[in-house]
């Protein structure tokens, strides 16, 4: 009984229920005032808010794990957002483009994820909130055969996990 009670009281459950209600609403009829849902229709504090308004990914030069000025700007915003919503643990996925061999790209993706995590930690995000994983060249988002696609695939993506506590 005790477990059931605390489960019902959990703020995360409340947030999920609210989120579902809003999604259901948006699907059926547009709200009168989109501002109710935050900028760009994203609920503040949601994955969509993080992706659209903060930016969930940073890009790298060929064969590099150095964070560009643009990337640092995105990660600064991610760190601020994560400070505002401290219940989210995150997973940083490191990826490589297809112009490398499989084993090296696994390590290169891991190196990019580590560089991203280290920067977020330097900006105040608790290290224990961040898990990293590398997919090497196994999960491209763009599949054309030129630099425009390869540069989209050389990335580190910050994914929000289910909020804790």
């Amino acid at each position, binding site marked *: 009984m005790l477990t059931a009670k605390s489960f019902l009281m959990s703020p995360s459950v409340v947030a999920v229920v609210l989120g579902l209600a809003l999604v259901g609403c948006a699907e059926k009829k547009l709200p009168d005032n989109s501002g109710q849902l935050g900028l760009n229709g994203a609920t503040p504090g949601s994955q969509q808010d993080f992706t659209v308004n903060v930016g969930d990914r940073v890009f790298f030069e060929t064969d590099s794990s150095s964070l560009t000025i643009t990337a640092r700007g995105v990660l600064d915003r991610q760190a601020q957002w994560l400070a505002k919503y401290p219940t989210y643990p995150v997973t940083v996925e490191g990826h490589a483009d297809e*112009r*490398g061999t499989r084993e*090296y790209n696994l*390590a290169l993706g891991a190196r990019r994820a580590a560089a991203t995590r280290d920067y977020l930690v330097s900006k105040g995000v608790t290290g224990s909130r961040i898990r990293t994983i*590398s997919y090497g060249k*196994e999960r*491209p988002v763009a*599949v054309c055969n030129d630099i425009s696609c390869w540069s989209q695939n050389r990335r580190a993506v910050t994914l929000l996990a289910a909020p804790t506590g």
Partner: protein
Amino acid sequence: MRVNGNPELRFAKRSARSIGRLCLAAILVFGLVFGIVMPSHAEVRLDITKGNVEPLPIAINDFAGEKVARDIAAVVEADLRNSGLFRPIEKAAFIEKISDPNALPRFEDWRVINAQALVNGRVSRTSDGRLKAEFRLWDVFGAEQIIGQQFSTDPKHWRRVAHIIADLIYEKLTGEKGYFDSRVVFVDETGPKDKRVKRLAIMDQDGANIRTLTRGSDLVLTPRFSPTRQEITYMSYDGGQPRVYLLQIETGKRETVGNFPGMTFAPRFSPDGQKIVLSLQQGGDANIYLMDLRSRNTTRLTNSASIDTAPSFSPDGRQIVFESDRGGRQQLYVMNSDGSNPQRISFGTGSYSTPVWSPRGDVIAFTKQTGGKFLIGVMKADGSGERILTEGYHNEGPTWSPNGRVMMFFRDSPGATGGPKLYSIDLTGYHERQIATPSFASDPAWSPLLD
């Protein structure tokens, strides 16, 4: 009829539930007919130590007997042709019609069509339903038998009988062991490029008898064959945790390799099959570790602020070649198998990766990236004598045939509809050919010869 003095060949029984019980007993029976004295050495001999070998013309008759006899002869012929070392002669050119494959052929009929070697055979059923296959290899110009053997097996293993016959012909005529009775494990790839489903798969070296070993729910990469058992090591993302596993092919039994605090990848067996060498990701660096499969002890072999990966043992087990970017771009290094004395061996332009030591020990195959292309090449273990075998948009991941004569690798094609396919190429750089697979295929790894 005298019995040839060669030792009896035995093929070990294996309890293969998934593949089927393999019980292939080869009995050497008949070496000699008509009182001809067997020569100790055949006169027909193909010297394959030269660069581009002129393929040896060979006449392979349809084997006599039931339908599978023709199929067996066809597989023997395909194996020999695909090696690039033999040129099977069109059957329409044959003059003598073989009615008794055990009878002495009319050699002059085969000399006329310039057949250097002649293969005759017969397939029948034993009273207990087993398949009995017998063949004779003749030296046409020397007018003598080179070898004659007989095998009996479960009929479902008829392709293996054909590969074993092809291996014997190859060995007798080249002086080197064959590689046809072997298999290849690889990654079967289906679905669109941005949502690829990857499954471990296994097939005979010629692409036959393909089957998948995993269901495709988890991403799997870089399978490698054990040199001593029907076992593979590979990397899987099962449970969202990328790490190295060991899989027994015939039972499907699987276990993780070691208990490492991070991603493990790029595994490969030691030549005795008792150890696995792999990379462990530690922050932004990857280091090479050795794990003893019996004691479960792990030993760290490299310790540098770099990506050290793709380790591969020398066949004597004393050294390990690997790739590292410790000097900037990826290059090849050789160290002792205890991690001591690492020495860079690659110095050409571009970067070098995925080194694999030849089972002969003399050369190391690699992937090279230069000028926006991906090449497959070989160099000696001291880094000298670099030779490129094939190049193009994307070639990657060579693996050696058991005799070190042929390599298989994968070639990727660009764009949304592109994908990898498997290719083989001779050590000389000739005889490149695609291995037909039903879907896209990558990460091939050749087994040792089956037993």
